[in-house]
């Protein structure tokens, strides 16, 4: 009997994922209400439960367990981007126009700053060759920019792993940290959200962090964040790498 149930659930992975996530949301909102009197938003708790569940697997988190493979489809880039685009229905085009320039500046500053701060930290922690430094610095942009840069420059697989991990840490810190610092950095309006998306850049971290802070801000942050990884892949292995090479030789 268990076998039959498991077979049905595995075969209909996406639908089981709907059920499972629905269940997580139910528990999270209940916990938020009962334990924190809505002080910690239910979404934030749900995302934390999600991250904790990811520890049950490896590379693909909980989706490494065949029963939960559908979670990778539901949480994959296709559905994520589809639903992010849908949030544009609630966004105000005028507000985006106003924040446009700040958004572009935030993007450039964000990629430049993440790369060179990442490089500086890696240097302080014992890395000195320009390829490893650039790869780790690129990982500080997003976990896609890291391996793309490392691949282009021919970095070792150990450094590639570190750069991907740095990007994943960034996503997690953005997810958990955003609601905590939102007040301090006055992240409570579309204008700031556009800038925030450009500075942090990791689409999943920006999206999840803003969702936990105020879902209304999601489309504004997502709009700029979507350009970040591409810009990073463009600048890190080229211009930034050459600047770095001039600095460390």
């Amino acid at each position, binding site marked *: 009997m268990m076998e039959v149930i498991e077979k049905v659930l595995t075969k209909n992975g996406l639908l089981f994922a709907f059920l499972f996530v629905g269940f997580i949301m139910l528990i999270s909102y209940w916990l938020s209400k009962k334990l924190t009197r809505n002080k910690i938003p239910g979404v934030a708790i749900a995302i934390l439960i999600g991250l904790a569940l990811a520890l049950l697997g490896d590379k693909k988190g909980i989706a490494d367990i065949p029963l939960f493979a559908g979670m990778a489809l539901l949480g994959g880039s296709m559905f994520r981007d589809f639903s992010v685009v849908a949030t544009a229905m609630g966004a105000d085009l005028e507000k985006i126009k106003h924040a446009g320039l700040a958004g572009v500046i935030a993007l450039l500053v964000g990629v430049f700053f993440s790369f060179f701060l990442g490089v500086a930290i890696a240097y302080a922690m014992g890395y000195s060759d320009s390829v490893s430094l650039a790869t780790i610095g690129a990982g500080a942009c997003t976990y896609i920019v890291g391996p793309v840069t490392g691949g282009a420059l021919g970095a070792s697989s150990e450094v590639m792993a570190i750069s991907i991990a740095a990007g994943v840490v960034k996503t997690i810190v953005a997810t958990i940290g955003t609601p905590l610092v939102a007040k301090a950095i006055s992240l409570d309006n579309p*204008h700031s959200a556009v800038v925030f998306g450009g500075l942090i850049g990791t689409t999943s971290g920006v999206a999840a962090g803003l969702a936990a802070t105020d879902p209304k801000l999601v489309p504004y942050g997502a709009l700029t964040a979507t350009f970040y990884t591409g810009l990073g892949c463009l600048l890190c292995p080229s211009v930034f790498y050459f600047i770095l090479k001039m600095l460390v030789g």
Partner: protein
Amino acid sequence: MIIYGVALLAFCFLVGKILGSLLGLAIGVNGDVGGVGFAMILLMVINLYLKKKGWLKTETTKGILFWSSMYLPIIVAMASTQNVKAAISSGPVALVVGAVVTITAFFLVPLIAKIGRKEQNA
């Protein structure tokens, strides 16, 4: 009909992704640059146009709003499929770089948001 909304959303999504991939190709990055952004702008513009013309039915909007409200559960599913184990176990460099860069970037938000605002008021 609800499917009109879903179809419109899919249209914007695909056109945005194609534009993003073409831009990626043009600047020599293998991948999609800003596809989601293009799709969002397209959806906003079409939405505005249809509303003005009075062609946007409530039923059509429902098809889009459904997906927009599925956004949070999808993010939760996404969180549960991240490589959290690697992030925690790959040693201090990744942890320090990821954490310090993100936290410092948080505090750049008010600075850059200010620059933008001044321009806006001027």
